[in-house]
C-alpha cells in the first residue's frame, strides 16, 4: 500500500470505530437512564406508565408493614403533600427508617402501587438523598405558590 492509501485506511477505520462507539454509548444511555419523580408528580400522572423510574421522598411515619413471610414490606413514600404506596420484597438497607429519606426504583401499576425492585437509603444519618430532599422542596414550593398552608397535607397541589 502507498502511504496515502494507508492514511486513508487508517482514517476510515478510525471514523467507523468512532461511529460505532458513539452509537453504543447513546443506545446504552437511552435504555438505562432512570428518571426521578416526586410523589406529587406521580400522583398527577406525570410519571411514565409501564417503565421503571425512581421516586424519592420520606418514609411516612407508621406506614411500614411487614407481611407474614417476613420479607415483603409495604410502606408509603411521601413528600408531605402526596403519598405513593410501595411494595418491596427483600431485605431493606440499614438506614431505612420511618420518617427518613428514601429512594425506590420500580414500576407503578394500575392500582397506583409501586412494585419496587430496589430501595436505597444513603450512608449517613443526617444525610438525605438529594432526590428525597428535592421532592420535599418541590412539594413545599408548589403548595406555597397555591397559598395553602404548608401544614395541611390534604391541600391540593398547585398544578
Amino acid at each position, binding site marked *: 500500500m502507498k502511504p496515502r492509501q494507508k492514511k486513508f485506511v487508517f482514517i476510515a477505520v478510525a471514523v467507523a470505530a468512532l461511529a460505532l462507539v458513539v452509537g453504543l*454509548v447513546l443506545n*446504552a444511555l437511552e435504555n438505562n437512564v432512570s428518571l426521578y419523580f416526586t410523589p406529587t408528580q406521580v400522583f398527577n400522572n406525570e410519571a411514565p406508565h409501564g417503565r421503571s423510574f425512581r421516586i424519592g421522598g420520606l418514609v411516612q411515619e407508621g406506614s411500614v408493614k411487614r407481611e407474614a413471610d*417476613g420479607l415483603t414490606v409495604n410502606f408509603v413514600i411521601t413528600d408531605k403533600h402526596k403519598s405513593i404506596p410501595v411494595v418491596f420484597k427483600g431485605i431493606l438497607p440499614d438506614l431505612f427508617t420511618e420518617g427518613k429519606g428514601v429512594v425506590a426504583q420500580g414500576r407503578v401499576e394500575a392500582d397506583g402501587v409501586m412494585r419496587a425492585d430496589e430501595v436505597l437509603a444513603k*450512608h*449517613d444519618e443526617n444525610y438525605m438523598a438529594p432526590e428525597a430532599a428535592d421532592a420535599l422542596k418541590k412539594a413545599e414550593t408548589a403548595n406555597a405558590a397555591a397559598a395553602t398552608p404548608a401544614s395541611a397535607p390534604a391541600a391540593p397541589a398547585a398544578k
Partner: protein
Amino acid sequence: MIPEIGHFALIVALFLACCLGVLPIIGAARDNAVLMGAARPLAYGQFVFLSIAFVCLTYAFVANDFSVLYVAQHSNSQLPAIYKVSAVWGGHEGSLLLWSFLLAGWILAVALFSRHLPGEMVARVLGVMGLVSVGFLLFMLLTSNPFERLLPAAADGRDLNPLLQDPGLVIHPPMLYMGYVGFSVAFAFAIAALLGGRMDATWARWSRPWTTVAWVFMTGGIAIGSWWAYYELGWGGWWFWDPVENASFMPWLIGTALIHSLAVTEKRGAFKSWTVLLAIAAFSLSLMGTFLVRSGVLTSVHSFAADPKRGIFILSFLVVVIGASLLLFAWRAPKIGLGGKFDLLSREALLLSNNVLLSVAAASVFIGTLYPLFMDALGQGKLSVGPPYFEAVFVPLMVPMVLMMGLGPLARWKKFSAPELAKRIRWAFASAVLIALLLPLTMGEWSAMVALGLLLAFWIIASTMLSLRERLAGRGSFMQRARGQPLSYYGMQSAHLGVAIFIIGVTLVNGYETERDVRMEVGDTLREGGYEFRFNGATEIEGPNYMAAKGHMTVSKKGKLVTELYPEKRQYNASGMPMTEAAIDTGWLGDLYVSLGEPIPDSNGAWAVRVYIKPFVDWIWAGCLLMALGGVLAISDRRYRLHRKAGAVKRGAQDKIGMGNILATEGKQS
C-alpha cells in the same frame, strides 16, 4: 495551641510552595543556576512543614481535642485508637491535608532521586509540582481549614461514620491518594517537557518508573476499596459503578494507557504527543476525582450552592490546570513531534488501538458519571444512570482490547506479517477456544457470556505461555535463559495474567452466583448450592463503641460441618447508625456469604437473612494484586538503575545519540 501550630505550619508550607512554583521555573527559563538550585531545599522545607501540620491534626484526634471542629465532627472518645488515626482522613478537610502531605512526599522523593537528571529538568518538574501544591494549600486555607476551632468545645465528638470504622478504610484512602498524587509526577514531567520543548526516549525513561509506581498504588487502592465494599456494605457486590468509584476508575484507565504509551515512547520514540496528552488527562481526572468525591458535588449539584466558595474554587482550579496545560500542549506539541513511524500491522499499532480503547472506555465512564450532573445543572430534571449502562458499554470495548492484549507481546515492532503471526498463535488460540467452550459445562449451565469471558481469560493465559516458551526455549540451560530476561518482561506478563485472573473471577461470579433473601426461624435450615445453612439464632453482644445482635449459622455439606459463621447487626452508640457486618467464609473456589437483614417482629427470634454463594469472587482481587505485582517487578528492572549511572555521564550528548544507544541496548528485549 497544637492546632494553631498546625495551622501556622500550613501557612509556611504555602509560602514555600509559592516559591517552589515560581523561582525554579524562572530559573530554568533564564538558565539561572541559583534559582534552579533553590528547588531542592524548598521541596525539603515544604515537606517538613506539611509533616508538622499532619502530625498536629493526628495529635488532635488522638488527644480527643474536641475544640477542633473537624475532630468534633469525625471522632469520639470511645473510638478505638487506630480509627482515631484513620479518622484524620475521614472527612473533606482532613483528606485534603492528606493529599497535600502525600504530594509533599512525592515532591521530596523526586528531589531525592533525581540526581542523574539535568538540572533544568529537575527545576521544572519540581516547580510544576509546587504549583499544584499551591492550589491545594490555598484551597485548604481559604475554604476548608482542618484546624478551625469550635468554641465552646464539644463535650464529645459526633463519631466517625461506622462504615469507615474498618481496617480496609484505614489503608484504602491513603493508597488511592498515593496513586492520584503520583500521577502529578507524570504530569509534571510532561509539562516540563513541553516547557523545555524537548522530549526524547530518555525523557520517557525518567518518567516511566514514577508513573508505574503511581499506577501500582492506584491499582491497589481501587482493589482494596472494592474488597471493602464487598464485605462491609453487606450486599455482596464488589463494584457498583457508583460515581465515587468511577472517579477513581477513570484515572486508572487513562493511567493504564499512559504506562503503555510511555513504553512505546521509550523504546520506539513514537506516540510522543499522545503520551503527553495522556499524562495531562490522567492527572486532570485525578484532580477531578479528589475534588468531586470529597466535596460531595457528585451526589448533588446543590452542594455547590450550599458552599459556593468551595465550588467556585474547585471549578476555577480545574479550569486553570486543565486549560493551561492544554494551551501549553497546543502551543508546544508541534515542536515535540509525533515520533517514529510504524506500519498498520505492528506492535505499535496494537498498542495504539488499545490506548484508544482504554481512553474511550474512560470517556464512556465519564459520560455516564457526569451526565446526570449536567442534566440537573441544566434544569432538565433528575435522573440516574444505572450499572446496566456501564456494562452495556464496557463489554464491547473490552473484548477487542483483551484480544489485542494477547497479540501485543507476540507481535514485532514496526511491522509484522499477519500470516506468520497467525501461524504462531493458532494453537494457543485454539486451546483457549476449546477450554472456553468446555469448561462452563463442568460448572453448571452453559452460557454464552461465561464462554466469552473464559475465552478472553484463557486467550491471555495461552498467549502468555506462548511468549514465555518462545523466549525461554533455545540454547543454554532453561534457568540461564529465564534469568536472562529483564524483570520488566516478567512484570508485563504478571500484570497481563492478573487481567486474566480478574476476568475469570468476574465471569464466574456473575455467571454462577446465587443470592437468597429468606426469613429464618431459630433452627431453620436453608439448602443452597449443595450446602446446608442452619440458623441457630442471634444473641446480644456489646462492642467497644456499639451494641450488636450476633447471629450464629452452621454451614455443612452432606452432613459434614464446613464452617460456622457469625454475622452481626450493629448499632453504634454515638451516631445511632445501624451497620451490617457480613460473615464470610473465604475459599479458593468461592465464598460463602451470610448477613443479617432485620429481626422479624412478632416472631420467636426469627431474622431476615441473606445467604450468598459467590464462586471465584476472590480471584477478582487476586487479579488486581497480580497486576500491581507486575508493576512492582517492572520498576525493579535493572536497566533503570544502570541507565541512571550512564545517563549522568552522557547528559550533554544524549540528544542525538541517546536514542540510538537505547534502541541498541534494548532491542534485545523486544
